[in-house]
């Protein structure tokens, strides 16, 4: 009898506790949403920001960066605790949306990588940084960056994590072997226009007996061509693909038909390993590419790489926008961190010297010109060329900015789906490709009118 009673009461207790756990799980979300304060009444005028007391949450994929920067930040702002959670770029937006929709864990500082930046801005969850308490002045930011960090209404809603002007990384040994020179200035002259680029490409192909080509694939070439056309192509839900893509596609197919492009797909293992094999001359590269692409995939290749401007002008590749969540309860503290890490002279100097990130704040380049002159972490890998200086002096000046749109990721997705077919079937023409592009785009973005 005793045993069954104990058993029964134990079972009863267990079932009641499971029941209560289930109910608690359901109930807590509603409470959180209800207590979210709308205004910033808690945040009165701060006399000394360095004495702010708060816990700020940030989601980032670059753990090393956060660890280093947070330590530096805490030297000046000892009472602001930054909690960094590592979240992958591929499911960042999805996790963010789930978090907001369910009212649970949302970071105060949100990162928008170029792959989903337009969609993030379109969600309208980032605060306007031109207003109080941020009061960010657009004229202090490098000009071409402003469209990349503004939403559809022209308000600046984010800070650029690092400048991402891109040129072509090239193999010095191959350039010297087939063109007789590996000097960036001379190469810039040699490849000043795309026509010259194609000519030189044909020459390279013949001289090397097809063993060395200009670019690894259609995808790489398109990154440059698409990025150079920065005119807006979206007007509300009207998408003008013809004006955006006609010219890049024609150029792209010209290159493909001339035979100067390889057949590799972006990011595939074959593409990654081609860098060390010396099968291709150029790879599109932004400042972060030195670390994540070139030196990562060609670890023994120190000294045999260089950087040159792409034909005609530079283009933007990648980039991440840092914004602050509209309903964050610790906006001041979050802004102090963002300001310190990505805009202030002090933080930018540390950022540049440790990670090679270049701030979008114009003041830094005037006040710390010597930092740019000094050798960077990957300069030796690039044969002693001062990468930061080359980017700032040669590539940035004639770059223009591109307004972001939620259709950017659709465009990328459609391109990624279609370009292997273009590589495989050389009978497809640029016009046919454009028509197919429009068709696929309409399938994916059924609410848009496509021209």
């Amino acid at each position, binding site marked *: 009898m005793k045993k069954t009673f104990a058993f*029964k009461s134990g*079972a*009863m207790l*267990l*079932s009641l506790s*499971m*029941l209560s756990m*289930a*109910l608690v*799980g*359901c109930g807590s979300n509603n409470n959180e949403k209800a207590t979210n304060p709308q205004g910033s009444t808690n945040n009165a005028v701060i006399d000394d920001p360095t004495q702010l007391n708060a816990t700020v949450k940030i989601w980032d994929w670059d753990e090393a960066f956060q660890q280093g920067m947070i330590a530096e930040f805490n030297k000046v702002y000892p009472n602001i605790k930054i909690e960094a959670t590592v979240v992958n*770029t*591929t499911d960042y*937006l*999805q996790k963010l*949306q*789930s978090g*907001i*929709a369910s009212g649970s864990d949302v970071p105060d500082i949100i990162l928008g990588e170029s*792959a989903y930046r337009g*969609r993030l801005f379109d*969600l*309208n*969850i980032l605060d306007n940084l031109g207003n109080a308490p941020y009061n960010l002045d657009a004229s202090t930011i490098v000009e071409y960056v402003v469209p990349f960090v503004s939403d559809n209404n022209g308000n600046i809603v984010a800070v650029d994590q690092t400048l991402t002007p891109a040129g072509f990384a090239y193999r010095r040994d191959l350039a010297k072997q087939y063109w007789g020179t590996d000097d960036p200035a001379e190469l810039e002259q040699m490849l000043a226009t795309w026509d010259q680029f194609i000519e030189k490409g044909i020459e390279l192909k013949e001289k090397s007996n097809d063993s060395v080509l200009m670019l690894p694939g259609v995808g790489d070439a398109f990154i440059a061509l698409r990025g150079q056309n920065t005119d807006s192509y979206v007007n509300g839900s009207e998408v003008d693909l013809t004006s955006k893509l006609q010219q890049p596609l024609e150029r792209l197919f010209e290159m493909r038909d001339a035979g100067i492009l390889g*057949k*590799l*797909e*972006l*990011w*595939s*293992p*074959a593409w990654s390993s081609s860098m060390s094999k010396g099968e291709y001359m150029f790879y599109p590269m932004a400042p972060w590419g030195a670390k994540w692409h070139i030196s990562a995939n060609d670890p023994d290749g120190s000294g045999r790489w260089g950087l040159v401007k792409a034909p005609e002008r530079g283009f933007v590749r990648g980039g991440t926008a840092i914004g602050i969540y509209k309903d964050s309860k610790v906006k001041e503290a979050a802004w102090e961190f963002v300001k310190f890490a990505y805009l202030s002279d002090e933080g930018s100097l540390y950022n540049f010297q440790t990670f090679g990130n270049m701030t979008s704040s114009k003041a830094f380049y005037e006040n710390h010109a010597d930092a740019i002159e000094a050798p960077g972490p990957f300069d030796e890998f690039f044969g002693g060329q001062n990468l930061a200086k080359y980017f700032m002096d040669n590539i940035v000046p004639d770059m223009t900015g591109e307004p972001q749109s939620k259709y950017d*990721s*659709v465009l*990328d*997705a459609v391109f*990624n*789906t279609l370009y*292997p*077919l273009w590589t*495989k079937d050389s009978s497809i023409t640029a016009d046919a490709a454009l028509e197919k592009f429009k068709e*696929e785009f309409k*399938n*994916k*973005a*059924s609410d848009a009118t496509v021209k």
Partner: protein
Amino acid sequence: MLAENKLNTPTASRKRKWGPRMWPYLFALPFVVTYAAFQLYPVLYSFILSLYDWNGISDRVFVGLDNYIQLWTKDKLFIKSITNTLIMMLMFIPITLILGLALAYWTFNLVRGKQFIQTINILPYITTPVAIGFIFSYLFDWQTGLVNLLLVKLDFLQEGYYWLQEEWSSRAIIALMVIWRNLGYFMIIFMAGMTTIPQDVYEAAKVDGATGFTLFTKITFPLLKNISIFLVVTAIIGGLQLFDEPKLLYGGWSGSTQVGGPNNTALTIIWKFVDESFISNTRLGYSSAIAYSLFVLIVVFSLISFRAMAGKGGG
């Protein structure tokens, strides 16, 4: 006798309400509550959501059945995803069933090495789909895949065949992945069914002069009918939900957002669903409509297959 009388009086029955009769309900309560909270409620909520247009953050806009109408009449990709899924199911379900049965029969009658074969065959089923996706996309890579290298070396082809970007070969590779993965599972289930067949039936048949093939067709196969029905119906349900294999075959590399394979021939219904809600768009209401349409499809197909297989013989 007296005790029974006491138990049947009105006061006693009121007391009994909280006595032993309540225990079954109380024990079932945790599961039912959890099920209701985490399975049933989301299912009902999704249906309500499918009547709205929502991106997860802004306000919901009621659109009624507009999502369904747009889905079935205007969305060509959705119809294409249904045909793709059905085609791939036709490619892998019969093969898996037949091969699984053959393998099970062969293994069942093995004298030695039975355990070994069973273990080897179940390994693909417990391998994580992500790894399988990577490996298959490496194997069939155009420029550097092992399959192409072998074929070129053995002079079957001049240049590598672009497996992953040809319409039918992409479906074939996905079917291959599914077959490879599920063969062990089907084999195990069939073998479990075979153990229930009494041996004396076989002996009696052998006495009457039946040989291997006749034994199989006249005894084993009919007696496995219930297992076959179970496997077919679950295979159809699982097949309609095909998602892991195609997505991982095409989305393996980081940064690649290729959805649907070449010309959308590998796009399955669930892949379209995930694409609409998380990858290319954030139309949660529209995706809920896709999920519900799939639900209806699964119910219809499993009913048809069940009736077709069990209806004739009466199960």
